[in-house]
């Protein structure tokens, strides 16, 4: 019932643009106000008559659609929207159609069904990447596919991939006549960015990089010939990547590497590109230490890290997250990476990091976060619910062990059973001992003053 109602709802004063208007004699603009209102009333009356006639029939096709939508996951926001709009829609339908009985009862049924899902409904499952609408550059289409299938993961990797794709786009871009590059390029890039966001929600690193790019574009010299302007932009992008990611990582490697002493047992969680570099660098410079890699579903990225570290000759131990309590007493330092850091020092990172940091704090083990300054976010998040991402269902990452029977592990969404795989969580600043950035080692409470101290916006 509810979906049918939402489709019927239209803004009170605007003309119903979603209506399949068959053969309207005049366009909306040319009609006078009175004529428009008359048309609206006619359409509303027709609809009310339809709902009065159809009653339950019209509502039941809506119900299976409701279920299909919630299991398909594409309309995760729909259950949230439905109870909100269901109430005013139900009131209106009851007034107009005088079929209030049918609509309100099916309404409450729909609400009870969605009640368990409401609390997580804002997470938003990734929508299936539909065929590219409009002019999507092939590089962006490819990148979006790689994002949605998790072939490229990690804040740094995604940002570098995005910027590299943008460089290609900028080089292929041709300013249309009567437009300036500095004004038009951004409008040209917007649908590309939206396509990427539709594949997977944007990471903070991508957001910061794009913001810097927008700044650069709007600052391009008006008089510059087009090719020079494009080259300048590409150079700026290259500088951004080089300075704020590559060089920053090298400085962090050295600084954090100094915190590793001979005989240490270093614990890390999942796979952070920065921590991987730190450990490899420390090993290459001759320090003798051993590593414990803690891993967890849904992504099981730690296996890859273990392969790389053991290839380099570091003695590694591998375990899953629940076993953490048994080994934490042996650990000397915990190194974790971050997706982003908020102004209050809270670390937004792969799901499970908060548990690692909390257990380390309980055993008085220092927790060192390795994070470049371009990952700083100006917002403050209070818990892991405000902003999060769900991994798609199914065994996308082949994360189940082979020695367990398959049917017991591949659970689908059933009535009363829902599977959630949040990808991120928030580590409170109290659990973090220090943050290593390219500008130094700072305590988590001072994160907000770093951009100001550096004279930068981000």
């Amino acid at each position, binding site marked *: 019932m509810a979906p049918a109602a939402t489709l019927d709802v239209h803004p009170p004063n605007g003309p119903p643009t979603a209506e399949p208007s068959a053969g309207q004699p005049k366009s909306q603009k040319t009609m006078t106000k009175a004529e428009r209102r008359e048309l609206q009333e006619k359409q509303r009356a027709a609809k009310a008559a339809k709902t009065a006639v159809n009653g339950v029939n019209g509502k039941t096709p809506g119900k299976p659609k409701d279920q299909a939508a919630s299991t398909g996951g594409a309309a995760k926001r729909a259950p949230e929207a439905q109870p909100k709009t269901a109430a005013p829609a139900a009131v209106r339908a009851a007034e107009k159609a005088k079929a209030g009985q049918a609509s309100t009862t099916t309404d409450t049924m729909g609400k009870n069904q969605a009640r368990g899902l409401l609390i997580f409904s804002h997470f938003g499952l990734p929508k299936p990447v539909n065929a590219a609408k409009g002019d999507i550059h092939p590089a962006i289409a490819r990148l979006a596919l790689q994002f949605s299938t998790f072939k490229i993961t990690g804040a740094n990797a995604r940002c570098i991939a995005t910027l590299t794709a943008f460089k290609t786009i900028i080089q292929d871009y041709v300013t249309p006549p009567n437009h300036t590059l500095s004004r038009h390029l951004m409008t040209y890039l917007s649908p590309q960015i939206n396509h990427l966001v539709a594949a997977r929600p944007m990471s903070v690193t991508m957001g910061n990089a794009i913001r810097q790019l927008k700044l650069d574009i709007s600052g391009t010299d008006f008089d510059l010939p087009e090719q020079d302007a494009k080259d300048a932009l590409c150079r700026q992008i290259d500088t951004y990547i080089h300075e704020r990611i590559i060089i920053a990582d090298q400085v962090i490697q050295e600084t954090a590497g100094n915190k590793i002493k001979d005989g240490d047992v270093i614990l890390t969680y999942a796979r952070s590109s920065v921590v991987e570099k730190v450990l490899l660098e420390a090993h290459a410079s001759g320090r003798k230490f051993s590593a414990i890699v803690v891993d967890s579903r849904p992504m099981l990225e730690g296996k890859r890290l273990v392969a790389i570290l053991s290839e380099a000759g570091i003695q590694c131990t591998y375990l899953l997250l629940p076993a953490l309590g048994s080994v934490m007493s042996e650990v000397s330092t915990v190194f974790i990476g971050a997706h982003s850091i908020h102004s209050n020092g809270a670390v937004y990172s792969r799901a499970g990091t908060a548990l690692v940091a909390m257990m380390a704090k309980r055993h008085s083990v220092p927790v060192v976060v390795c994070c470049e300054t371009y990952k700083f976010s100006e917002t403050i998040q209070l818990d892991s619910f405000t902003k999060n991402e769900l991994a798609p269902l199914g065994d996308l990452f082949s994360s189940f062990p082979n020695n367990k029977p398959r049917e017991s592990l591949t659970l689908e969404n059933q009535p*009363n059973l829902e599977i959630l795989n949040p990808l991120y969580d928030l580590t409170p600043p109290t659990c973090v001992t220090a943050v290593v950035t390219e500008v130094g080692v700072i305590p988590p409470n001072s994160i907000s003053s770093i951009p100001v101290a550096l004279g930068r916006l981000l």
Partner: protein
Amino acid sequence: MAPEPQNIPGHRAVETLVAKLRRRQVVGSREAALETAIVLRQVVSKARFTNIQQLITVIREVGRRLAEAQPKEHSVGNTVRRVLHNVREEYNSATKGSAASRNVYSIGKFVLQGQPRKQSGGAAKSDGRITLKENDPDDQDSFARALKPVLMEAIQDVLDELETVYDNVSKNAKDHVHSDEIILTIGHSKTVEAFLKSAGHYRNYTVIVAETAPSYQGHEMARSLSAAGISTFLVPDSSIFAIMSRVNKVILGAHAILANGGLFAISGALLAATAARAHSTPVVVCAGQFKLTPLWNLYHEYGALDFADPSSVLGFEEGKLVERVDVVNPYYDYVGPELVDVFITNDGDHPPSSVYRLIKETYDDDDHEL
């Protein structure tokens, strides 16, 4: 005088159970306790003894062999201690007609004086005193014959209690869970499952089940709860901290409850309990009283360790990694008493600080070391 293994009556049954325990064919602490009680019943029924001390020695010998077969399965030893305690109690009530404990040094005696003793059916059932002749030279079996019926009843009490554990734990489930609550649980404890299903009859609430890798018992639990009509979410262990801010209660099952109020639980329980403490969320442990263990030391983090198959963590399909990397797969975690708020047992609700008193009441001091 320790009897030879072959001289223990019913030793074949004992050997069978020892083999099953050693091969870990007995799965679950309640199963182990039930099998132990059945074997002990057989042993006692076939035993020949002329005084009580002989019987107790026989039972202790059996208990020691069973406990050594699988030292991590604490419910075996607990059942033996329980049976010993009941046997002694029956004997005391039969000879002296009072329910006083043999121990004069027990602090439990001070606690119990003035309190109605927990009825294990001993004094009420034996009508009056049985005339017992210990060490009778003429009729060696008279003592045993007279006492055996009462002992059988005592062991049957233990069996009955084991069989009704789930019902008794879930008795007050609806008082502990209110409507629209969100409860977090991990692993697949049958006690917790019965508790939640019983509450589900009266209340409408949501359960979030953590997968508990690498055994993935959470999947079974989620399937069973959702089939019972309780709205369930299945999440990986990595998101326990993330969702904890919305969780109202954490309900855990236990493998063994230690004398200091701590417990051994499936690995992952420590993460859930610590995250709950960080969010000031109450932690409830549902367990039967047969899990109470009088053992206690300072090194529980190591005492809990029972390593399971590492191929569930890193399988042989990883090939090269397997030979270069150490893989750790502990099955149990130790959760300290400061992290638990209440133990819901088949004998009522108890805070962790009073577990020592329960142990004093349930077992005899002599039996702590079998």
